[in-house]
């Protein structure tokens, strides 16, 4: 018995020594090959990935999250995990100098990344203004402020163009829209959400604006009371069946949006909820659905 224990101990010590040697051996040559000044970015935010490509920084990206599905080139980059579940080892093995995070990431993971000397750029975005600021900030940090300014300018121009479509409609006559973020339990977007701002820029009034939270779970009877003129279903899997689903709910058949067939279930959520360069395309699509005739007359 004693012999076996000694043997195990011996094998374990050798294995440990080999492991330590491998680690040391691997780490030493890693530094000279990478230039300390080269920008190596990992973007965990699908929106920021798009923005980085838009600013011409695509070739500086060395890793993305699984949620980064646009532009197509981004899907070919190494993936370091899904939203909120990133793999530290994969990330560090890519030797990033900068990591762009989202609200979903775990604080302890990001703290560990930061303490290993990597610049961590946080991205809490609740309004379109904050989105522009995030573009300008990343432009400055990456030495591309001009490109960031161009992007922001272009998107502001888009927004102004979209605004023209409904500018003539006074605020109180703009369509009252209920955004259904999830159906079970009923979840909507309150005034603290990015969607609330997006909807306002598309010319809609958020039925749930009175709730000063981001994505509250609400009583379905409240929706009946709001009596929205338009219902937007954010779950893309209901595409094509939205009206049928909403009409089938007890009491919901009396909602104006249901009576007038104004249940929208076919918008691309990547364009609409992602605070990235394509957001204005999504807002334009939504606006065109809210105001089917030019300038809302």
């Amino acid at each position, binding site marked *: 018995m004693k012999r076996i224990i000694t043997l195990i101990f011996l094998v374990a010590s050798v294995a440990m020594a080999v492991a330590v040697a491998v680690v040391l051996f691997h780490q030493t040559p890693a530094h000279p090959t990478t230039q300390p000044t080269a920008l190596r970015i990992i973007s965990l935010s699908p929106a920021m990935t798009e923005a980085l490509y838009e600013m011409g920084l695509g070739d500086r990206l060395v890793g993305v999250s699984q949620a980064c599905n646009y532009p197509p080139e981004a899907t070919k980059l190494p993936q370091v995990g*899904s*939203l*909120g*579940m990133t793999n530290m080892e994969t990330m560090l093995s890519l030797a990033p100098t900068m990591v762009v995070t989202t609200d*979903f990431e775990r604080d302890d993971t990001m703290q560990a990344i930061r303490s290993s000397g990597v610049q961590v750029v946080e991205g809490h975005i609740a309004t379109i203004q904050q989105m522009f600021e995030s573009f300008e900030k990343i432009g400055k940090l990456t030495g591309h402020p001009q490109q960031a300014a161009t992007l922001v300018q272009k998107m502001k121009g888009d927004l102004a163009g979209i605004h023209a479509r409904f500018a003539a409609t006074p605020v109180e006559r703009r369509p009252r829209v209920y955004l259904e973020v*999830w*159906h*079970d*339990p*009923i*979840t909507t977007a309150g005034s603290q959400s990015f969607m609330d701002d997006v909807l306002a820029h598309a010319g809609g009034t958020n039925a749930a604006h009175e*709730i000063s*939270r981001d994505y*509250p*779970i*609400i*009583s*379905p*009877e*409240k929706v*009946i*009371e709001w009596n929205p003129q338009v219902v937007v279903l954010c*779950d893309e*899997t*209901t595409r094509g069946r939205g009206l049928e*689903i909403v009409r*089938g*709910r*007890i*009491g*919901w*058949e*009396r909602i104006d949006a249901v009576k007038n067939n104004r249940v929208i279930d076919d918008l691309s959520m990547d364009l609409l909820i992602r605070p990235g360069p394509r957001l204005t395309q999504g807002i334009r699509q939504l606006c065109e659905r809210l105001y089917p005739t030019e300038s809302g007359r």
Partner: protein
Amino acid sequence: MKRGWRLYLLLIAALLVSCAIGLGIGAVHLSPGDLFAPGVGQLRLARVLLTVVVGAGLSVAGVIFQALLRNPLAEPYVLGASSGAGLAAAMVILMGWSVAGAWVLPGGAFVGSILTVALVYALARGSGGALPIHSLLLAGVVVGAVLSSLLMFVVSIAPPERVHNVMWWLLGNLQIFDWGLLRAATVLVVCGLGITILLARDLNLMTLGEESAAHLGLNVNQSRVLFFILASLITGAVVAAAGLIGFVGLIVPHSVRLAIGPDHRRLAPASALVGATFLVLADAFARTIMAPTEIPIGVVTACLGGPFFLFLLKRKRPV
């Protein structure tokens, strides 16, 4: 018997009052005239009805399991029905199947819970068709634990925005949109309650222990299987309609037993009435305390029910 009638009258009156409260308050102000009109009124009516059915079902299932397993800690989820249903529901939610129709999620949960208890039954069944209580309990607890870890695994690899929805399901959700679903749950629970009341004498015998029950003419194994199926069907129906609502099935039978004694002929119907009353009030609270935001019903049942039960326990020591 006279006293019995008075008790039921009192409990029915309490249930009606709580239903009136449940119908009267909510995120939206309703005048009494609107209550039965289409729209908000119907929606709230459906919800209160579902809550009555769920509260009664959980309590009766708790009564049966406590008698069947002769264990004070038994409750509707003790044999793994909750973990099986939870795993199935989580899969349905995370795979995005729940949008295919109003029936997919409840159907999945029902199947998950029934399959789980069937598995527990198969594992616990001894030679010659005997169904020993301790095997049933152990098999239930272990199968439940395994399925719970699978549930945790599924949740851990799920996208964060969907995890939230699974969490909600696991804390109970009494939002209802489909009359058919309400009807199905009602039929199962009412039938289960009816059979339980008819066979309440057998439950009394079972609590005496295997031998005494057999001497008094009860076919113990046959009864066990019957009550096992009965309680599992009720639990499955309730879980399918409302997710997991803890505490009701545990504390309502105990509270009622403390108040009126252990005779199942009165305990079963009284627990159903008290459970329904309690859940209607708890749901009214959950719907209105932060309106129009709703808080999970499971949190309310535990926070309100726990201290109340401890109060009862302290006041009147059980045997």
